[in-house]
């Protein structure tokens, strides 16, 4: 316990670093996956290729990707960029399939109604398709968020400090509270991001509550 009390400042600072290293790939992955997922959904012939390629990416273990990206991109193995690009790729890998499914889950009648009301292509996308795909996208984002937060810790093996520092430093010095703190704080950061996403969902997609409620009543 003493260790924790002595190192509160470091715990907070590394948690914030960890948060930053997590949020960037989540947002970038999400933004990249929207057009790709929509494309895969809209043009059915491309769905197989896009999803397979993206699925292949996800099978690559993080440590391996940290080794493979530098020669391909010409960046340093031990840079933040390496970790951020790798994590963005993982986030996109999950989200592209999720986005494709999300857009596929929209009732075509709603889209036709929107067109009938006079919405043009882009307008219809932002005003109707995206919000209706929202709940499924949100579910995917929550999975991505938790997965990304966990993967950031592996960055410590290529010199990018985060809460993962507590794992290796605590392990070296055999200080159990330090390693435990790393595990617990990583867990809390993941839970916090999850809570933020749920909150965002409530604010941006207030009607999705009603949809769930009606579905529940049907089952009973």
């Amino acid at each position, binding site marked *: 316990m003493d260790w924790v009390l002595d190192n509160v400042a470091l715990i907070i600072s590394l948690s914030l670093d960890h948060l930053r290293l997590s949020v960037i790939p989540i947002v970038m992955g999400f933004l990249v996956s929207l057009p790709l997922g929509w494309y895969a959904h809209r043009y059915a012939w491309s769905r197989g290729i896009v999803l397979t390629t993206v699925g292949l990416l996800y*099978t*690559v*273990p993080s440590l391996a990707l940290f*080794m*493979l990206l530098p020669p391909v991109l010409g960046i340093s193995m031990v840079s933040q960029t390496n970790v951020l690009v790798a994590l963005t790729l993982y986030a996109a890998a999950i989200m592209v399939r999720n986005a494709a499914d999300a857009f596929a889950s929209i009732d*075509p009648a709603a889209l036709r109604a929107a067109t009938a009301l006079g919405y043009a292509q882009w307008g219809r996308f932002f005003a109707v398709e995206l919000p209706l795909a929202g709940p499924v996208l949100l579910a995917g984002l929550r999975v991505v968020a*938790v997965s990304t937060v966990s993967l950031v810790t592996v960055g410590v093996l290529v010199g990018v400090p985060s809460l*993962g520092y507590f794992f290796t430093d605590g392990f070296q010095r055999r200080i159990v509270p330090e*390693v435990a703190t790393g*595990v617990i704080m990583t867990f809390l950061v993941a839970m916090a991001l999850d809570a933020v996403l749920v909150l965002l969902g409530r604010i941006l997609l207030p009607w999705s509550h009603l949809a769930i409620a009606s579905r529940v009543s049907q089952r009973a």
Partner: protein
Amino acid sequence: MNLFLEAWWWLLSPEQYVGQGGIPQRIGEHLYYTFVAVGIAAAIAIPVGYFIGHTGRGGVWLVGIAGAARALPSFGLMLLLVLLLGVSGRDSAALAALVILGIPPLLAGAYAGVQQIPRSTIDAAKAQGMTPWQVLVSVEIPLSLPLVLGGLRGAVLQVVATATLVAYVGLGGLGYDIIQGIPLRRFDQTIGTALVIVVVALVLDAVLAGASRLATPRGVRVGRLGDVRARS
């Protein structure tokens, strides 16, 4: 591009394949940890998932715990367990961390697999006079198979990827040559090994996808409607 060529040469040199620490040995170690961990996780998660899905009790609980378990960083968990169990227990520590990693997808798959079976189907089976055990074996398990196998595939993927980290506590596996190669600056080794890991993961995934398709009962496959909505 140069580095990839060097890695390719490293992969092609025969000394990597013989004796102590050769690539086949590392693959074997890696697959050992993967299969044992997923096996234990499946033995725990699938029955529990079936039980909760079948009885309908504790579903919310389950989703919550599975989601929370996903948030535990496996790398840190493994190091913590090794510290607590000692060096002689590092095998168990690593396996425990991997098992905890594998449980959520298997649990979710089993639960969802049973949950999505229409009540009417189960009722029909009971109406035909099947005992609860027969319902489980002849109806619920086959019909839930696609989702359960999907969960299995997800679990194997996660565990095979994370098993690269057991090398950090000296347990071998494919991560060993990467962790050894970084301080030695042997990039042909690190990149070459990374490529091997990618191939192993892809092969495993393809095998599981194929097995999943084979194991799905023909009736289930046929019964799945095409995605009509995607067309407009």
